[in-house]
């Protein structure tokens, strides 16, 4: 009877705490969760993070409420008498509900994660053969941008524009962009934070990540894989701009880098630079 009363108290306290905290997490903390709303996929990740945090909140509260309650309810009121509690012999009801609740939660998260991955793809890239391809706004094909990492700079190649390579990046707004991420030397990671992309750049591998841009945006690109002494300096900025502005920018790049474009190898999803004359 005493035990039932304690259980009821814990459950009621937990329910109250959850009813207060979960909406706060969803509506107050949720909108501020990373990586922001710089792209459709980034917004999806904010939603995913909010769902995960909202799911974890009642779980964390259950632990905290239980801990706080037992500390208070079962505190030693007569310290001069130290008695051990009764031995725990198992509680089939608790075990049953523990399994039911945790299994339900895990299955829900697995299902939710699968559905979301198929909808938006993975910000970490899907390897060379993506299975989740978001649909482009208004139909059509994605804009392919190859991200070429090397110690210690990201370059960008646009196969749809004569294979021109640039050392900066601009993207058109409201466009599905297909990042083909690769490396010429060691392992890097293309982390375009505001776009919701953090894709490994491995030599000899094409890692595909999709982004659907929204409106004008300044985004930051950093390498997220320790790649040598200047890893911390391997960063730059990019812009999402109106389509007309992008057209003008890429035309300027084609003109500016025309001499270099002539010397580049044909566009390929991966590159294997020639053996080095002096490299070890």
């Amino acid at each position, binding site marked *: 009877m005493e035990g039932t009363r304690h259980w009821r108290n814990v459950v009621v306290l937990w329910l109250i705490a959850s009813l207060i905290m979960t909406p706060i997490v969803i509506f107050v903390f949720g909108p501020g969760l990373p990586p922001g709303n710089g792209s459709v996929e980034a917004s999806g990740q904010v939603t995913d993070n909010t769902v995960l945090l909202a799911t974890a909140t009642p779980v964390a509260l259950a632990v905290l409420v239980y801990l706080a309650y037992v500390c208070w309810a079962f505190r030693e009121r007569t310290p001069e008498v130290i008695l051990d509690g009764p031995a725990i012999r198992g509680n089939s009801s608790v075990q049953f509900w523990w399994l039911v609740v945790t299994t339900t939660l895990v299955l829900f998260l697995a299902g939710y994660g699968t559905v979301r991955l198929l909808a938006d793809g993975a910000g970490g890239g899907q390897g060379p053969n993506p299975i989740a391809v978001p649909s482009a706004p208004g139909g059509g094909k994605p804009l392919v941008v190859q991200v070429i990492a090397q110690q210690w700079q990201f*370059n960008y190649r646009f196969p749809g524009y004569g294979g021109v390579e640039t*050392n900066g990046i601009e993207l058109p707004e409201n466009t599905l962009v297909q990042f083909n991420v690769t490396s010429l030397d060691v392992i890097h990671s293309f982390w375009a934070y505001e776009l919701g992309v953090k894709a490994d750049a491995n030599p000899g591998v094409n890692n595909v990540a999709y982004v659907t841009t929204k409106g004008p945006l300044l985004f930051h690109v950093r390498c997220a894989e320790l790649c040598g002494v200047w890893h911390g300096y391997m960063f730059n900025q990019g812009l999402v701009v109106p389509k007309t502005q992008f057209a003008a920018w890429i035309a300027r790049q084609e003109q500016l880098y025309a001499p270099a474009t002539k010397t580049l190898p044909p566009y390929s999803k991966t590159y294997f630079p020639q053996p*080095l004359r002096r*490299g*070890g």
Partner: protein
Amino acid sequence: MSAVGKRILWSTLVAAIVCVAIALYIGLYLVNVPGSAAAVSTSSGTRLYLATVPAAALNDAHPTWVSYYAVNANAQDWRHVTTYVLPAKTLVHVTIYNYDSPSALRNNFFGQSSGTTGGVITLDGQTTKGINPNNASHVFSIPQIGLVIPLQGISATAKNPCSNAPCSLSNNHTTTTFTFRTPAKGLYRWQCFVPCAAGYIAGFGGPMQTVGYMDGFIKVV
């Protein structure tokens, strides 16, 4: 003095010595700033003279490592520094004497110059937008401002190459000049993009990963 007193005294002494040694180590580390060379202000503008060599001076800590040096207009007064001090928002005329042979680029993109006035460089007096990537010996690049300067290597059959710094203008070399406008005050990293570190994995170890050889800073003041 009692045995316990002696023990306390010795323990205190040893602890004090260890503390002083640690403080010295940290202090010396913090004040150990690499040397720098400033651009020269002349009647014809601000000028910076650099040189690249296949191997550092014989008395260097790494006499087999490829390296940049600061020099004067006549390729003399060799200083082994890779931090260069330049005035902000100023046109700087840079001359680089290259005494090294080609290693070829890993990414041919860096065979074209960019970020310079007019988008061009002069190679041995000839104005050009870039070089054959296979003839690249080194690159002087400041990624943060998009500056890329490919340096052509000397011929493999050069009669009078220079093996170790310091070299002279009588040694085979190429001369690359360019002008660029410095950005706002700050610290900007520069590096070489040619995998030119002989004997290291992928040519990008050793001098490519050590400040003071094939990379450094542009300190804009």
